[in-house]
């Protein structure tokens, strides 16, 4: 056995250029599969990971979703909030209000949105996932303080707004005590163009007692759907309409996003399948060539007394060694490419996408290299070993 390895190794080394090319051909194919799948997993994880962290949330809005548009029906009242507190299984309730406002900064006026709510709730909903770039978050008694989204700070006005700068919102003065990081995919619209106030300050600035958004947290995620229905009924009863409120669980939001996901996943699987086919054809081609080139050698071996299976086992050993090296090299290369792609992707889009290189994908890559490599080496080797020695010796 040791001699077989030595013999196979000899012939691989003696045909250095051909062997390197074969290994390279296999490696590139495997790298394509590994990197694409890893980036795909990374994208999926980036989106679902964030959403599943908020699976206990029910978002309640005073309006209904009709197709792709949201139609606002009015606002919630304090009574709605009180009634919700009587529903079982709810951990806490946070009422928010928001509306369009006009903001003035150094004599420049721009339209934007104000969002006010329980500071603790807003903190867990916005500050924890997005993070602050500057300053600190609001406290309940920061009645004249505000925290601003990234676009408000950097894009809206000619001059960039920093902590301690003063803004005038609908005629009232506020001092900036914090600024958000740029929101990522999901939070971008919510966070970046908003100015966050305490609920009390927001109600005053917007001159309304109406609540535009209620966020409910439940104890048991499995009950979320039921509780959401109960919330809708309770509020609809209060307002005497049967479709005043829309309560959406994260689960149902996930489902909606899930469709998009299935498309992305389908595309990725398609690309991986194409990569697999291209890789397999490449591996087959190089293996076929490198074994066929040696029909003469196979003939000589048979002429001096080798049985077909002696020849076959030698060539199988050789092609599995080459395939294994190619597979491992391909995995390393694919790993590197995946990391590189996700780095370029992240810096270009500002989204946090970390490629996820799963051990299963690496093992699969090596398995594909071995299976395709050995099978495509096996076919010409078997054909050559079945030839009569004279025929094979004459070859080439």
């Amino acid at each position, binding site marked *: 056995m040791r001699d077989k390895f030595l013999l196979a190794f000899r012939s691989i080394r*003696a045909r250095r250029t051909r062997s390197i090319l074969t290994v390279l051909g296999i490696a590139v194919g495997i790298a394509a599969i590994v990197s694409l799948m890893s980036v795909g997993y990374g994208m999926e994880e980036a989106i679902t990971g964030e959403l599943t962290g908020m699976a206990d949330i029910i978002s309640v809005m005073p309006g209904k979703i009709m197709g792709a548009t949201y139609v606002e029906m009015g606002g919630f009242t304090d009574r709605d909030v009180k009634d919700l507190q009587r529903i079982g299984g709810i951990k806490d309730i946070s009422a928010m209000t928001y509306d369009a406002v006009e903001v003035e900064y150094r004599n420049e006026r721009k339209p934007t949105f104000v969002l006010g709510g329980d500071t603790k709730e807003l903190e867990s909903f916005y500050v924890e996932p997005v993070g602050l770039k500057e300053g600190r978050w609001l406290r309940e008694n920061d009645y004249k303080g505000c925290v601003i989204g990234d676009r408000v700070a950097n894009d809206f006005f000619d001059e960039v707004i920093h902590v301690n700068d003063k803004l005038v919102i609908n005629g009232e003065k506020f001092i900036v005590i914090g600024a958000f990081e740029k929101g990522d995919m999901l939070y971008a619209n919510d966070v970046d163009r908003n100015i966050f106030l305490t609920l009390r300050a927001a109600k005053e600035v917007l001159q309304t007692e109406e609540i535009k958004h209620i966020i409910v947290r439940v104890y048991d995620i499995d009950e979320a759907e039921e509780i959401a229905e109960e919330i809708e009924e309770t509020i609809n009863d209060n307002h005497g309409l049967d479709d005043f409120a829309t309560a959406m669980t994260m689960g149902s939001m996930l489902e909606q996003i899930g469709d998009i996901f299935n498309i992305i996943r389908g595309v990725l699987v398609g690309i991986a399948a194409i990569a697999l086919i291209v890789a397999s054809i490449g591996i087959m081609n190089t293996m076929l060539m490198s074994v066929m080139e040696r029909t003469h050698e196979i003939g000589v*071996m048979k002429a*001096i*007394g080798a049985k077909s299976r*002696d020849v076959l086992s030698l060539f199988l050993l050789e092609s599995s060694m080459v395939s294994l090296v190619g597979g491992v090299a391909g995995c390393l290369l694919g790993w590197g490419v995946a990391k590189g792609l996700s780095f370029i992707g992240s810096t270009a889009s500002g989204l946090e996408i970390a490629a996820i290189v799963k051990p299963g994908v690496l093992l699969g890559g090596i398995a594909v290299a071995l299976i395709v490599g050995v099978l495509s080496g096996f076919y010409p080797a078997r054909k050559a070993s079945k030839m009569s020695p004279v025929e094979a010796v004459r070859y080439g």
Partner: protein
Amino acid sequence: MIRTENLTKVYRMGEVEVQALRDVNLEIQDSEFIAIIGPSGSGKSTLLNLIGCLDKPTSGAVFIDGIDTGKLSENGLAEIRREKIGFIFQQFNLIHTLNALENVALPMFFAGMRHETRMERAEELLAKVGLGDRIHHKPSELSGGEQQRMAIARALSNDPEIIIGDEPTGNIDTEAGKVIMDILEGLNREGRTIIVVTHDAEIAARAGRTKRMRDGKVLD
């Protein structure tokens, strides 16, 4: 003893049939040194390939030591080639990725011999053909005559009774060819049967018996 019985080989290429051998009946005794001569295309190589079990006849039979080789399986034929016959080609047909020692040891590897035994014997055989100081050289680093001597050492590795050479001196110069013939004569004196095809009358003259071929037939 080697005996052929109505040995016939027809090559078929599409519509065209080539009668390479026609009903050849030939007997070669143990320890004989026989030379086969004849014009190009007369069927000399075809005959040697059939005797050497490298190819199968269209009809007729080859008996080696009383065994009808036509009745043997692929593996059985491989064993005959490995144990009873040493074949020497005009083009040497050495494995160019292996050095002299490994080339000579290869048939013993297929015979399942131990590594140490193989290497020892390969070294002895290389010394016997005058390549004792070339054992680690690759074929490409040697002259044609030296390569053919390496091929003879390889042919001898499983100690066969029969040595078959298809124009073994065809690709090397006269001087080196004489050395090859000396070696073959020596092997014949050891009791081995030697069958050689040649175009060289001088070489044919050194054989114990000469047979002439024409149009696929062995002449009397």
